[in-house]
């Protein structure tokens, strides 16, 4: 595979970049995150930069593959937008009546219908809407009386925070446990870790959330006058990061934990099985015969080659996290995107729901593609081959 690249007139400089691609990409990603953290640019900028880094990295690693993937994503995005639009357009009942309520007069209905462009043919409406979407205009929600794009980007911050924290927490549990269980495969330790994690896998995140609230924030069960539980963490409300950092993390801990534990179980099981496979390879025997300490072998030698599936799956689970985030936002009264869509649904506001679903699906598709690209940039063995979560 490497031969193919070097044959194509690659200069030494380019080859050097390619060899260090994993490190360069990682550094660029960290730099972007640091920049976003201190500078607080609009969310779309950060996201754009991250996407650009991923795309450029994939382009350097394997230009043709990257190009093919990007071209392949476009019809999927168009398809999703069409499905979302068609779904909302085929809602039973007149949207104008839904918005105005049953007491509306014919004149009012006519006005709202023209305002929404409902009298035009279906494909014209779809074209208009798609044109608006491409220029960042998702329409104006009549029920919530605000610009949908504004509403979504405002609620994006808490959702992304919860998702980011829960991925960090999940990995924080999954990596050490996965390594340990893989190393002690077949022993009691392995069995215990596996069973506990299976338990978390089987706990729906809203059940876990309710349990966490019960035992960590309102004192738990009282048995014969004694409390079995704690009152250490707040159970609801959202505090922006800019307002009070400590309070922010205190309020985010329970929601993030509720979302993280199920993910941790998935991650742990994956890492464990990959660890077991890696630990059978000859280079581990070599490391051991050199007398390296076990801890060093596990963390420095075995972890990296075992973590590629994990990386892809972290990308894949973003979709699940969004669904989970919705429930968690509902329980902990956090004004995120899930809460926004939920409000849209209960108010029967199809413009808000349509915008929210489109943004989230697009985000999901882009993240999926990016995680494939990251895979390619980080694992030189895969370049020039068909790779990705889908392969």
């Amino acid at each position: 595979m490497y031969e193919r690249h070097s044959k194509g007139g690659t200069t030494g400089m380019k080859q050097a970049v390619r060899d260090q691609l994993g490190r360069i990409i990682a550094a660029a990603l960290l730099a972007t995150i640091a920049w976003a953290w201190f500078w607080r640019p609009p969310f779309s900028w950060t996201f754009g930069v991250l996407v650009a880094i991923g795309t450029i990295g994939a382009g350097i690693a394997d230009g043709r593959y990257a190009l093919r993937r990007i071209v392949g994503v476009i019809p999927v995005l168009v398809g999703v937008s069409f499905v979302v639009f068609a779904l909302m357009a085929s809602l039973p009942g007149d949207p104008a009546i839904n918005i105005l309520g049953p007491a509306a007069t014919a004149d009012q209905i006519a006005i709202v219908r023209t305002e929404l462009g409902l009298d035009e043919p279906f494909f014209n409406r779809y074209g208009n809407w798609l044109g608006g979407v491409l220029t960042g205009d998702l329409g104006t929600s009549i029920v919530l009386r605000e610009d949908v794009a504004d509403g979504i980007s405002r609620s994006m911050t808490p959702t992304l925070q919860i998702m980011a924290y829960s991925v960090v927490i999940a990995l924080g549990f999954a990596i050490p446990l996965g390594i340990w269980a893989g190393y002690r495969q077949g022993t009691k330790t392995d069995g215990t870790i596996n069973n506990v994690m299976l338990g978390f896998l089987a706990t729906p995140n809203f059940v876990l959330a309710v349990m966490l609230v019960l035992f960590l924030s309102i004192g738990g069960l009282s048995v014969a006058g004694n409390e079995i539980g704690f009152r250490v963490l707040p159970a609801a409300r959202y505090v922006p990061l800019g307002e009070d950092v400590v309070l922010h993390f205190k309020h985010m801990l329970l929601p993030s934990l509720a979302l993280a534990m199920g993910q941790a179980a998935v991650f742990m099981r994956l890492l464990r099985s990959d660890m077991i496979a890696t630990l059978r390879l000859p280079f581990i025997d070599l490391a051991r015969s050199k007398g390296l300490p076990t801890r060093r072998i596990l963390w420095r030698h075995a972890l990296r080659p075992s973590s590629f599936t994990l990386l892809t799956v972290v990308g894949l689970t973003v979709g699940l996290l969004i669904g989970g985030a919705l429930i968690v936002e509902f329980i902990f009264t956090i004004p995120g995107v899930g809460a926004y869509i939920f409000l849209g649904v209960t108010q029967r506001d199809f413009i808000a729901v349509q915008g929210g679903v489109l943004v989230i699906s697009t985000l999901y598709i882009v993240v999926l593609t990016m995680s494939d690209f990251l895979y390619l940039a980080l694992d030189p063995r895969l370049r020039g081959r068909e790779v990705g979560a889908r392969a």
Partner: protein
Amino acid sequence: MRKRLGFIFWLAVAYLVVLALAAVFADVLPIKDPAETFPGTSKQGPSLTHWFGNDGVGRDVFSRVIYGAQVSLVISTVGTVLALVIGGLLGMVSGYFSSRVDRWLTATLNASLVIPPLILFLALVLFLDGEAKRRIFILVFTFVLLSIAPIARVVRAATLSWAGQDFVLAARTLGARDGRVLFREILPNVAPSFVSYSLIIMAGLIVVEGSVAFLGLSVPPPTPTWGDMINKGRTNLDVAAHISLMPAIVMFVTVLALNFVGDKLQQYFEPRESVL
């Protein structure tokens, strides 16, 4: 080495059977009416007359949990069976006729995975108008839609590996038609892997139904659902935690049992994969 399923496996199976029977025969069993309010028992803890205690308005939590199982089990079973038939068929066709058919089917299935489940569901909920029957229909429809792709992928992978085996080649050399090869040669070999997988899918559907009910968008009251009970109980969490806790525990054990049985069966049928 002899294959064993173990004691816990049978315990889980027994639990699931008892739960299913209780749900099916709830009307003839000597349990209390889930809608009846018992005066003066509001928020009372578990007792001999009311095993799981009473909820905020004095209804019997135990019988509500049993009746709630009806909704969860019916929706998840019907959803899983339909998804199994459709997804299994698609997966087998896709894995058996490789090349063009396969590429199109795989692309379509992958595309269907891009909308996050719960969000898709919320979008669909806009269709609902509170009428219980239509809501159940849409719930099942969404669940089938959600589980076709994962099932098809698993079945496709299994079909691919079996389709390359010598006995399949032999059958084809003997002049067997595609239909016969698929259903008589490949299906019996693929079946175990997707039956065990279907239990895990079913557990997933119970969780999704629970989440939806928790948001108040599943089958509307007065029909009891686990998710709705857990949600309603939250207002009394500090004084009467059992109202949320009991349905939560039952739901947890059910999902755990399904996952465990599915996992074990998979190991039982495919010992090689269980190492991974």
